[in-house]
């Protein structure tokens, strides 16, 4: 069953199209890499999927049991966050906000959930540490734990490995892969990292202000566009 379907979707800023002609559908458990150069509409598409930006044309259909506010989102880090005084637990708990409804405070249920996700990502020992004292890789794990609190079905990550060293990057990809395989959570990843795409993706969406390609990884390797792009960007 399809989790997300995009039908001829385009986005525009003040009437000027940013990205157009997007057609794809994702099934539960897919692992999609959205690739393409900077400024080709990847982040815009993400905003659209999160219902933060209305499509200019076409429609985005979410499965009936997937509410827009139940998508786990891992945005790019902002400068504000780098030295934010908050404990790991405070940050992860904020992922449970969409389950509170009209309640003002978190209950045992949300707290247990936060701890469970900290355990899952191997950072339970950091629970009381301050977010600003963590390394870049640890910070991303915290944000991933927060995203896990917000969703049962889908996590969208926007350049999660930007600025991380290769070892930490590999670890983070491993974790995301585990989340995909073990929890059956669908992953949508925006990334420059084509090598990771080749290792982990089940599907590829290639954008250059329009959709150049959508299909499985194998199809992408065989496609004309895939061959050219991969040759240019992967040294293997």
């Amino acid at each position, binding site marked *: 069953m399809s989790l997300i379907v995009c039908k001829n979707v385009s986005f525009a800023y003040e009437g000027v199209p940013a990205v157009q002609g997007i057609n794809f559908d994702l099934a539960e458990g897919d692992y999609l890499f959205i690739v393409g150069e900077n400024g080709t509409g990847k982040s815009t598409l993400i905003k659209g999927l*999160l219902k*933060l930006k209305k499509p200019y044309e076409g429609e985005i259909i979410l499965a009936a049991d997937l509410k*827009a*506010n*139940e*998508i786990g*989102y*891992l*945005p790019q880090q*902002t400068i*504000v*966050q780098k030295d*934010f*005084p*908050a*404990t790991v637990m*405070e*940050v992860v*708990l*904020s*992922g449970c*906000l*969409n389950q*509170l409804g009209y309640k*003002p*405070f*978190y209950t045992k249920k949300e707290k247990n959930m936060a701890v469970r996700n900290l355990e899952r990502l191997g950072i339970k020992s950091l629970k*009381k*540490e*301050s977010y600003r*004292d963590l390394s870049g890789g640890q910070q991303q794990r915290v*944000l991933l734990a*927060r995203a896990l609190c*917000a969703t049962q079905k889908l996590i969208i990550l926007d350049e999660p490995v930007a600025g991380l060293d290769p070892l930490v990057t590999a670890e983070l990809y491993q974790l995301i892969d585990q989340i995909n395989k073990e929890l059956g959570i669908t992953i949508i990843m925006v990334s420059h990292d084509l090598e990771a795409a080749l290792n982990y993706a089940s599907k590829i969406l290639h954008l250059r202000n329009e959709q150049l390609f959508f299909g499985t990884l194998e199809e992408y390797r065989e496609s004309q566009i895939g061959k050219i792009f991969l040759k240019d960007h992967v040294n293997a």
Partner: protein
Amino acid sequence: MLSLISEMFSYPFMVRAFVVGTLVALCAALLGVSLVLKRYSMIGDGLSHVGFGALAVATALNASPLLVSIPIVVLAAFFLLRISESSKIKGDAAISIISTGALAVGVMIVSLTTGMNTDVSNYLFGSILTMSEDDVILSLIISSVVLILFILFYHRIFAVTFDESFARATGVNVELYNVLIAILTALIIVLGMRMMGALLITSLIVFPAVTSMRVCKSFRTVILNSAIISVICLWIGVTFSYIYATPTGASIVICNILAFIFYSAFGKISEAKVKMQK
């Protein structure tokens, strides 16, 4: 010491100053943490200058200062927030234009009507003598509203402050909370302005938050610590100004500077200790 305190509180204006000051200091510190972290401190500064203009208008019209300035400053809060959020206009430059503009209009109105006298100095640098019975009641009402809203929405305010994109994606109405924070800030600035002065009121918003962040590691401790520092500095400042007849607003700010230096040193020392252990 005790006789000093009982003497001080035998003056009704001192009691009023303590009540209003404590409430304003408490609320300003709470809102300040979010404003400072969101890089919105300049909004506070802009609002206080607009408040000065509004006070001048109220005096010229012989109207109640609070009733005139509250709607004007709340409107300005909306406007400044919009400017800060829109990336097209240079936000900080626009805020400077509005705040100096409002200040100039205020000075012009005052000099054309009552003339430049001690009133102007009181507006700019604050005076402890300006609190009336009505001010106390209004402060009680507004600060209870701020406190209740802040506690009820505490977790949402945290989420909006830490990560707007994520909060928005999980269905939090970020714009609503930003407007709420701006309006509450406007109310607190108007309340505190006549005691602290238009030029100094922002310090109540910025100093306690920045000071607490030197040392505290969690959002909650930053909030609690800011509230405590803010209120204690206000008490010491007001008492000092009573004993030595110094300007109240400036005395409170000096206290805040000292607290900041103390916390910074403490933060540096404990950081060095952690490094040594490693």
